């Protein structure tokens, strides 16, 4: 074991050195005039070739290798691979921006996505490894018996994983189109190729070793820009240590800004705009007619008088762009009203927890924060693509240790993200806000053009107020190198890191979906007698089909897909967590109980999300089902109800049904190393 371990570590050290040398070489080439576009291409080609090389080297035709990497992955490397598997495009690109925009409230993601690993370590990983099969449905079916629960588990796995994988491929499209100016759809299929080179030939084995390689790139890419920023602002290159001071400076600046009359006037104007939209919505459909008539009257007046053509065309376009019917007008104006109201809202200090004018609004924020943390932690401990990774270690002890290493590697990113947000805020407050709009730095215009930054001088004073600036959360990570005036090679590095984050997560998810279909559905349910060779052929073909399907969906740019990822945690949590945990810790849990718990949990979560978020399914003719959230809990934390209902359902139904059969008793006894209680 030991010699191979050091050999592995030597390989990866060599690889890291090679990557750093590559980045250094590009930095030198950039000094000598290499155009940014070529730097982007170099990163894309170099990293994908690396992953492909690892994928080809780890090709396999062995089932255990394909599904669980031969159970030979040392704890340290499994931790790294889990880190890459876990940290998705959303963590890499979106998290720092979310923290920028929502301050303390955003830390629910940091807490939830790390705290979940304690649950994994204490409640699940060792037992899954001791069981030692291939998938999560395997475990549930072995514990509770029967194929029905396996099918329910497969359905829940696909429900939670498919949107997630689509979002990763979508992320790849965004990154490649932005940094190497490929067309979005082509970028998506480049991503598809990047995913398939890792997973197709070598399954879990290849995915594991590329994930380790991807982790190295992603963490390096994430920390570098903020370390440089920290160095230039505070003189200390360890941002996590020093951003407390910067946070204090941000707070002082906030005090000034929040009190400034210019800010107040901008907010007041947005408030008026929001009120105006509300009035118009209330007066629908008359308000729409009136607006059209007003515009027509104005156009005619201008035409009669000798007004310049440009003005008339402008008004005609305005009339043309009016919503065609009251329903669309309502939708569009509601969006506009919410956007204006958001800008009009009194600003909040970055570090303030649960701010609000009255006890009720503070309480609501607190409840939502805790509910979200709960869903994310439990969801973390229930997402099949993460739990699968703990089948790949050689021993139970290594499984436990690999959870520790996973958290170490994940922590590196999650303690950097809040620092990232604070440094970005500092930069925005010092170099953007209160600056004449004509003198804003060049990158602002570049990112406004692609819709990531919005600037509107609503009070027409020619100066940018905080309320007049809107930022897409993704822009924080993507544009920080430019914001801080770093060379383009850093931007290329960030792109390579984001790509690694998206690809590694997509690999893991894809493999999870594939094994649910090929191992659980095909082999366990349909053809238990099929040869291992056939099983592998089926797996690989399914992998291809699912990957192409996911890429096709991603290429449609589905708008809601990104929001749906956040719900995956609630869905996975309510489907799996109660059944898995009670399956291990409560002998009395029965098959009927587990089935009831899974179905009730997922149904309640989906029901809640649907009624709070949508309220209508046009193609089913359902409408008007919108409901007020329970206790003010947002749909992203729908799992609070689903998970609780899942536990309650399992306990109640289990107690109402006959105690589980002897095989289940024996299964639990083996998991716990307690003596089997044989019936006489």
């Amino acid at each position, binding site marked *: 074991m030991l010699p191979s371990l050091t050999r592995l570590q030597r390989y990866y050290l060599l690889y890291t050195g090679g990557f750093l040398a590559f980045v250094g070489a590009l930095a030198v080439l950039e000094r000598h005039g290499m155009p940014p576009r070529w730097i982007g291409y170099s990163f894309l080609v170099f990293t994908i070739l690396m992953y492909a090389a690892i994928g080809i080297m780890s090709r396999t035709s062995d089932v255990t290798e394909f599904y669980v990497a031969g159970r030979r992955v040392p704890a340290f490397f499994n931790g790294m691979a889990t880190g890459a598997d876990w940290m998705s495009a959303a963590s890499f690109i979106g998290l720092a921006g979310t923290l920028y925009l929502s301050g*303390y409230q955003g830390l629910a993601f940091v*807490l939830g996505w*790390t705290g979940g690993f304690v649950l994994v370590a*204490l409640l699940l990983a060792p037992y899954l490894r001791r069981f030692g099969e291939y998938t999560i449905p395997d475990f549930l079916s072995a514990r509770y018996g029967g194929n029905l629960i396996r099918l329910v588990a497969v359905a829940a796995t696909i429900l939670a994983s498919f949107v997630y994988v689509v979002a990763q491929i979508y992320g790849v499209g965004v990154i490649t189109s932005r940094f190497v100016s490929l067309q979005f759809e082509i970028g998506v299929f480049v991503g598809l190729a990047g995913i398939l080179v890792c997973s197709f030939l070598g399954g879990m084995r290849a995915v594991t070793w590329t994930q380790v390689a991807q982790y190295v790139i992603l963490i390096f890419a994430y920390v570098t820009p903020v370390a440089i920023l920290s160095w230039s602002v505070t003189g200390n290159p360890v941002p996590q240590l020093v951003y407390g001071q910067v946070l204090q400076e941000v707070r002082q600046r906030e005090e000034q800004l929040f009190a400034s009359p210019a800010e107040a006037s901008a907010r007041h104007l947005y408030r008026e705009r929001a009120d105006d939209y509300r009035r118009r919505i209330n007066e629908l459909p008359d308000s729409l007619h009136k607006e059209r008539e007003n515009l027509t009257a104005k156009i005619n007046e201008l035409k009669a008088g000798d007004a310049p053509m440009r003005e008339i065309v402008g008004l005609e376009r305005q009339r043309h762009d009016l919503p065609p019917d009251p329903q669309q007008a309502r939708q569009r104006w509601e969006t506009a009203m919410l956007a204006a109201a958001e800008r009009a809202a009194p600003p909040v200090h970055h*570090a303030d927890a649960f701010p609000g004018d009255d006890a009720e609004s503070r309480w609501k924020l607190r409840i939502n924060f*805790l509910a979200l943390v709960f869903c994310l932690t439990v969801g973390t401990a229930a997402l099949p693509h993460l739990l699968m990774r703990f089948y790949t270690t050689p*021993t139970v002890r290594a499984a*436990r240790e690999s959870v*520790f290493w996973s958290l170490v590697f994940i922590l590196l990113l999650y303690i950097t993200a809040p620092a990232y947000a604070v440094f970005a805020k500092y930069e925005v407050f010092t170099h953007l806000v209160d600056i004449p709009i004509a003198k804003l730095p060049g990158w602002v215009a570049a990112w406004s053009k692609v819709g990531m930054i919005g600037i509107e001088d609503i009070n027409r004073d020619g100066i940018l107020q905080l309320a007049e600036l809107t930022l897409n959360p993704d822009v924080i990570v993507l544009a920080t190198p430019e914001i801080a005036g770093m060379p383009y090679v850093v931007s290329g590095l960030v792109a390579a890191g984001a790509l690694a984050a998206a690809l590694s997560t997509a690999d893991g998810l894809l493999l999870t979906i594939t094994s649910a279909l090929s191992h659980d559905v095909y082999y366990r349910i349909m053809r238990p007698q099929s040869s291992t060779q056939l099983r592998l052929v089926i797996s690989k073909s399914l992998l291809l089909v699912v990957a192409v399907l996911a890429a096709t969906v991603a290429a449609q740019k589905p708008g809601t897909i990104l929001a749906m990822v956040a719900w995956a945690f609630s869905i996975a949590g309510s489907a799996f967590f109660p059944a898995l945990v009670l399956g291990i810790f409560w002998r009395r849990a029965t098959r009927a109980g587990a089935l009831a718990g899974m179905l009730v949990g997922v149904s309640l979560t989906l029901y809640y999300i649907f009624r709070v978020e949508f309220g209508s399914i046009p193609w089913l003719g359902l409408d008007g089902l919108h409901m007020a959230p329970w206790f003010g809990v947002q749909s992203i934390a729908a799992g609070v109800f689903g998970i609780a209902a899942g536990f309650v359902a399992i306990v109640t139904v289990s107690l109402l049904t006959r105690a589980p059969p002897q095989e289940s008793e024996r299964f639990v006894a083996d998991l716990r190393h307690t003596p089997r209680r044989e019936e006489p």
Partner: protein
Amino acid sequence: MPAGAYWRKTRRLTFGLLAVWVLVTFVLSGFAAELNSVDFLGFPLGFYMAAQGSLFIYLALIWYYNRRMRKVEEECGIDDE
């Protein structure tokens, strides 16, 4: 070692650490606004706990669990694979 000792010890350890976890994750975060009035290393304490402190406690919990479990398994003569 009496039969079942391994599981009893494991269970006690698991639930003990879980209680700490609940305390840190939900009780402490629930009072973040109050904690924020305390200064810690230049950070408001509530913010610091959610951004770094709790994360280190999580890591310590897992580390401690692994260490104890190694001991328990040694004592009970359990060796998986």
